């Protein structure tokens, strides 16, 4: 029996031959560990959208879709293992949903020629496609998020925030450190004071950070948290009676899982988002007929309509549209990762397209080009209504402060180009 198991395992490893009949969209998910609260809904949404395309349309351009899943537990070592085990399956695009794994994969996907999409996460300066030809981060990135949060604070304060203090509570990792530079630049422009409060992985211990918030009484708190850290932070904020409408999370700190444990106390908590919320879309009717009712839903099927499930759908929708674009450009339904890259670089998301997909007004409109792999940086603010138990958008989509962010992206990507001997080029 044991020998048989070992033989199966070896066979599975050895026969990692390309399955050419299908389009492969690997899902590096994490359904275990301290970040599973965010990983599960995203992975479910990602898988369900592709299941829908298979069931309703017979795939993309007549090609069936396959979504091999690999558990990373948000751990970079397992992420490497997952990448290596799936890249020979003919994988078209990676979406690792982890900034740490993204940093690891940027050189690897560039060497292997497989595109990667990191919507709202990853390395922000990958927006510069001349330096990062294989990495995309449309429709918005961390620096956009930071800027939109500050914009919202400006709106709240009537346009003047000089002398105010903003505290950033962040996950002490590459992910949490991303917005610091932008917030510092914006502090120079708008004259607010920035307090930095790092929280170490996994983020269950935040008493001292919130004690500091209580003592220093910042006017606003911005949070860059993920997984279990979000729930703890919101609970702590409730405990010290921090006004919830002055507490703004990034889009990764804005799911139902984060606010529900704090109950009524979390009412009024705000979070950014780069796509719309709720399940009031024609697409959900299709999902119900073709996926949920047939029992094909991924995971436990209890995440439908939540913020991060929607993000998984949105992420899958973006790459599916890019695959369609690639098929049009190259006139073949059997696209390769290189063709997929061309499709992503030529992707145009318009309102008509989203209406046709059953997702009207779901995300911002944007056009990808070689110079701009990151969209236009539109994001909106959602607010948690604890009595109704749902997120509501309270602002329109706002564009981030491009005049601050663009030079930062330029500087950071050029530093990377120099470090890695890349000659920036757009053809």
């Amino acid at each position, binding site marked *: 029996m044991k020998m048989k*198991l*070992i033989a*199966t*395992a070896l*066979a*599975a*490893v050895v026969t*990692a031959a390309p399955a050419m009949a299908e389009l492969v969209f690997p899902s590096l*998910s994490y*359904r*275990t560990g301290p970040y*599973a609260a965010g990983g*599960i809904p995203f992975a479910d949404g990602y898988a369900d959208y592709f299941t829908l395309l298979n069931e309703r349309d017979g795939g993309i351009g007549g090609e069936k879709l396959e979504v091999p*899943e*690999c*558990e990373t*537990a948000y*751990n*970079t*070592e397992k992420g*490497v*293992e997952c990448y*290596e*085990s799936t*890249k*020979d399956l003919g994988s078209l695009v990676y979406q690792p949903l982890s*900034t*740490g794994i993204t*940093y*690891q994969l*940027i*050189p*690897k996907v*560039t*060497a292997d020629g497989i595109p990667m999409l990191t919507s709202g996460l990853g*390395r922000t300066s990958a927006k510069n496609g001349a330096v990062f030809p294989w990495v995309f981060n449309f429709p918005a990135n961390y620096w956009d998020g930071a800027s939109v949060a500050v914009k919202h604070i400006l709106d709240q304060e009537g346009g003047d925030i000089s002398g105010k203090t903003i505290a950033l509570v962040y996950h*002490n*990792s*590459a992910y949490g*450190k*991303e917005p*610091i*530079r932008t917030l510092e630049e914006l502090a120079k422009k708008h004259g607010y004071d920035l307090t930095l409060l*790092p929280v*170490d*992985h996994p983020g269950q211990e935040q008493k001292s950070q919130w004690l500091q918030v209580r003592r220093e009484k910042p006017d606003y708190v911005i949070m860059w948290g993920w997984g279990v850290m979000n729930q703890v932070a919101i609970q702590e904020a409730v405990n010290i009676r921090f006004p919830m409408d002055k507490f703004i999370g990034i889009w990764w700190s804005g799911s139902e899982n984060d606010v529900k444990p704090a109950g009524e106390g979390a009412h009024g908590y705000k979070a950014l988002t780069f796509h719309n919320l709720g399940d009031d879309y024609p697409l959900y009717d299709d999902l119900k007929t073709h996926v949920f009712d047939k029992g094909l839903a991924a*995971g436990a099927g209890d995440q439908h309509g939540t913020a991060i499930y929607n993000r998984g759908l949105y992420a899958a929708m973006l790459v599916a549209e890019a695959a369609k674009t690639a098929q049009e450009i190259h006139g073949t339904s059997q696209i390769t990762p290189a063709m997929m890259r061309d499709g992503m670089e030529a992707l145009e998301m318009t309102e008509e397209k989203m209406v046709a997909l059953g997702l009207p007004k779901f995300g911002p409109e944007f056009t990808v080009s070689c110079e701009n792999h990151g969209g236009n940086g539109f994001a909106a603010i959602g607010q948690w209504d604890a009595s109704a138990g749902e997120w509501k958008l309270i602002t329109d989509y706002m564009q981030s402060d491009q005049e601050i962010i663009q030079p930062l992206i330029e500087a*950071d990507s050029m530093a990377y180009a120099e*470090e*890695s*001997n890349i000659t920036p080029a757009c053809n």
Partner: protein
Amino acid sequence: MFYREAGDFKTSYAEDNQTFPIRFDRYRYYAVLVAAFAVVPFVINDYWVNAVFLPFLIYSIAAIGLNILVGYCGQVSLGTGGFMAVGAYACYKLMTAFPEVNILFHVVLAGGVTAIVGVLFGLPSLRIKGFYLAVATLAAQFFLVWLFNRVPWFYNYSASGQISAPERTIFGVPVTGAETAPWAAYLFCLVFTVVCALIARNLTRGMAGRKWMAIRDMDIAAEIIGVNPLRAKLSAFAVSSFFVGIAGALFFAVYLGAVEVGEAFGINKSFLVLFMVIIGGLGSIFGSFAGAAFLVLLPVLLKNTLVSGLGWPTDLAAHLEFMIVGGLIIVFLIAEPHGLAQLWRVAKEKLRLWPFPH
């Protein structure tokens, strides 16, 4: 039948004291070396290197290092993750500051830097023992991780606090960076592993090793017979940290390519390497390899069996993996508290007597 000393006459002191006194064992060892150097590099692909061989080789070095400290010298350490981080960051600083120097020297120097740091944090071991020392080294773990997160100089002021290994070559062949061929990364780590194991083996059976073991078995008695505890303990910390530092440097530069200190070198890493040493066998070089293999390869094997082989959902497989590995650890420790190395030793004893046990 083949596995016995009979007929294998030793005529010199050196021969009598060799690591593999039995001829069959010796040839098996050479065969493993030949296979590792001359066969494996031709047949491996990216997956085998990055998911199996690199972690196995690198964790083996770390386990050898920790085994010297815990297994041979009896000083419990929970600072392995922190010391690996020192190796990684030292290697990164050296790589970026002196790009023209060969990466080989950087890795060795990174080990040297870690040795110095290890000696510093080993100083408390002169006054405290056992669990209390474990707590002191735990402080090293947290302090070092905090330091590398807090001081931007260590990560060259990069916005994200990540360090990434630039491409470096040996004889024109890249061994770090994304363009590295699988065989090059494998051979580079293999050379380090083999050399480290040889050094460790020869240190532990020489005078240094006997002093360490004397301290481990009873430090007061050792002092009375003339072992200087200061030198013995600090040399154990230095040698152990040297190996752990090399492992950290390879872990960052060759295996992962980009790391973040809190995630890659956290307290979990310290426990992982300590478990390797305990499960493999305290005070045994072979045990270090066995422990590393057990904790690195088993999860990969289980994942491939359950997910790719049997088609189970990934989360179920991940949870089961924890249970199976945890269960096996308990089974092994109950069956043989001295680790896999002792099982191997018993097996060899039985082989010698086979087929006539009495």
